[in-house]
């Protein structure tokens, strides 16, 4: 993000529906040209936040500023924001060209100008040949591309997208993700994107805001969230993860030693200072774990038993079980580590790959 003033500034946004706090004190800034994704499970407040920015909902408290000015009193049709919805929202009685031209028609532009812009936009989404079709004659993916063209034809600076690809199958989704990224690069439009698909979020975004129960659990680049999750929730939500329980033996700045319930002591990293004896959770990514024969001398390790191995093509996934019967997932492409079920092994890992979090009340996803 640039140091200059943000294009969109959301400040302490709160939205209550009756007794439900759908959005609970959300603040974030979006830079000009940025691709920011709201990622979170169902009901976490993503759509509500987006709808407040679009003007379809009024916040209970807080403010939305665009270019430094509050837009709360601006009607949704005057905010000049583009939006693509999760559901198919093309106007059924209009052709593709009329759909894309609609925003310019209500802006009373000349016919020549509309025709030219429509053609440009349809070329941009590679549907030039479909101008005369009705929405019912298009596939789901084509409909969403037309919706994208319609949302961009009036050159809004901000484009909101609420799970636009949720209804499409995986292959098609990936194609259109590529296309959205290309269009983002070509036009430099600022995009606020909503998804509950973490892969999609990681693939497309400059930054990701992880939503949980109406709050932002963490906001940062994909690498930030994956490598330096703020808490156990984010760690569990982004990527695959293994969690172990323990209590703090000793903590010094970001280094911490934790004793597991069977007495093993493991060293790891923490973002916040931890008190001695505090209950904590340790998180290790499956691909940061390695397996070794049980008689190997390794620095930091845990005795485990192999229970199952799955062949994933590019990788092997092992399920191992600790002495206290906890399952741990290991992903490796070290075929030598393969061994038969029931064998005793050593699980080893670097202390920099162990993340230690306070054992909060927040459930993992």
């Amino acid at each position, binding site marked *: 993000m640039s140091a200059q003033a943000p294009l969109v500034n959301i400040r302490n946004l709160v939205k209550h529906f009756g007794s439900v706090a759908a959005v609970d004190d959300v603040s974030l800034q979006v830079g000009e040209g940025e691709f920011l994704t709201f990622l979170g499970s169902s009901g976490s407040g993503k759509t509500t936040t987006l709808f407040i920015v679009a003007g379809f909902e009024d916040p209970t408290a807080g403010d939305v500023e665009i270019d430094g000015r509050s837009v709360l009193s601006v009607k*949704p049709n005057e*905010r000049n924001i583009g*939006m693509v919805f999760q*559901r*198919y929202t093309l*106007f*059924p009685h209009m052709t593709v060209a009329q759909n894309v031209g609609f925003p310019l028609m*209500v*802006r009373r532009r000349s016919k020549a100008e509309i025709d030219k812009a429509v053609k440009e936009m349809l070329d941009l989404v590679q549907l030039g040949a479909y101008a005369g079709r*009705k929405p019912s004659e298009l596939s789901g993916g084509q409909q969403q591309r037309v919706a994208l063209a319609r949302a961009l034809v009036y050159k809004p600076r901000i484009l909101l997208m609420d799970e636009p690809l949720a209804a499409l199958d995986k292959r098609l989704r990936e194609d259109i993700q590529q296309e959205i990224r290309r269009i983002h690069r070509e036009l430099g439009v600022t995009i606020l994107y909503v998804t509950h698909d973490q892969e999609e979020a990681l693939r497309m975004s400059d930054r990701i805001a992880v939503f949980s129960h109406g709050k932002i659990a963490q906001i940062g680049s994909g690498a930030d969230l994956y490598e330096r999750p703020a808490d156990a929730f984010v760690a569990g939500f982004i990527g695959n993860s293994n969690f172990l329980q323990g209590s703090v033996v000793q903590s010094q700045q970001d280094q911490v030693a934790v004793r597991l319930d069977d007495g093993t002591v493991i060293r790891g990293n923490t973002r916040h200072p931890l008190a001695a004896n505090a209950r904590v959770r340790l998180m290790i990514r499956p691909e940061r774990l390695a397996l070794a024969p049980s008689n190997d001398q390794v620095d930091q390790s845990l005795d485990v038993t192999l229970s199952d191995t799955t062949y994933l093509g590019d990788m092997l996934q092992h399920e191992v079980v600790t002495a206290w019967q906890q399952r741990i997932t290991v992903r490796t492409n070290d075929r030598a580590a393969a061994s038969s079920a029931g064998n005793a092994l050593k699980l080893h890992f670097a202390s920099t790959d162990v993340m230690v979090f306070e054992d909060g009340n927040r459930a993992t996803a």
Partner: protein
Amino acid sequence: MLLNLNRMGPGRYVLYGIGVLTALFLLLPVAFIAALSFGSSQWLQFPPPGWTLKWYAAIFNDPRWVESIWTSVKVAFTVMVLSIALGLPAAFALVRGKFPGRTLLHAFFISPMIVPVIILAIALYVFVLKFGLNGTFIAFVAAHLIVALPFSVICIVNSLEGFDESTEKAAIVCGATKAEAIFRVTLPAIRLGIFSAALFSFLASWDEVVLGIFMASPTLQTLPVRMWTTLRQDLTPVIASVSTLLIALTIVIMIITAFLRRRYAR
């Protein structure tokens, strides 16, 4: 398929037979009336001894018939317009509204379909008498509107429920005002429902007879009422030709509907 006609052997001719008989059962009275309307016999003899158009000529030469046709058209058309004008906003409130008692209100709008017409008629008669409106155009329209409105509400509610409100929202973010979004997007998108509502409302009034009898005066009668009063005096072939005209009109309306549905079906 379990019930495949071609695999049923000779048994299928039994099915054909039943089909043909059912069709005849439904169509014979209509065909019968149509045949009589062109028959030359004053006494509705069947088969007709000869063919003539004089009963049709009689309709158009009798100002009372022409007048009642004209009254029916005016009443039905006014009912149709009012039924949409009231049914459309009502349907929006019933589908989009968030207020307590919404389902109850929905049931209330449908209730004239369930209440026996004769009860409606008596109640209306008393009401209309009290205000000295009996025998007026307004009374006819009001009475028919009561039976037409449920059709209108049902048709429009159904199509509005099938219309995703996000589409209207999309029009608004695109820069349309709420009114523009409704007139340029929502209403065109549910036009088939509105069209059906108009059609059913028109027909509900057009062939209504019970309420009509109560609302009529000697000088103001709709066509079905006029048919009824004529029938009570004598059975003339003119009734057969009026009926045939009514049937023809219904068939024309159905053909137009089918054509429009095919054309606008998505």
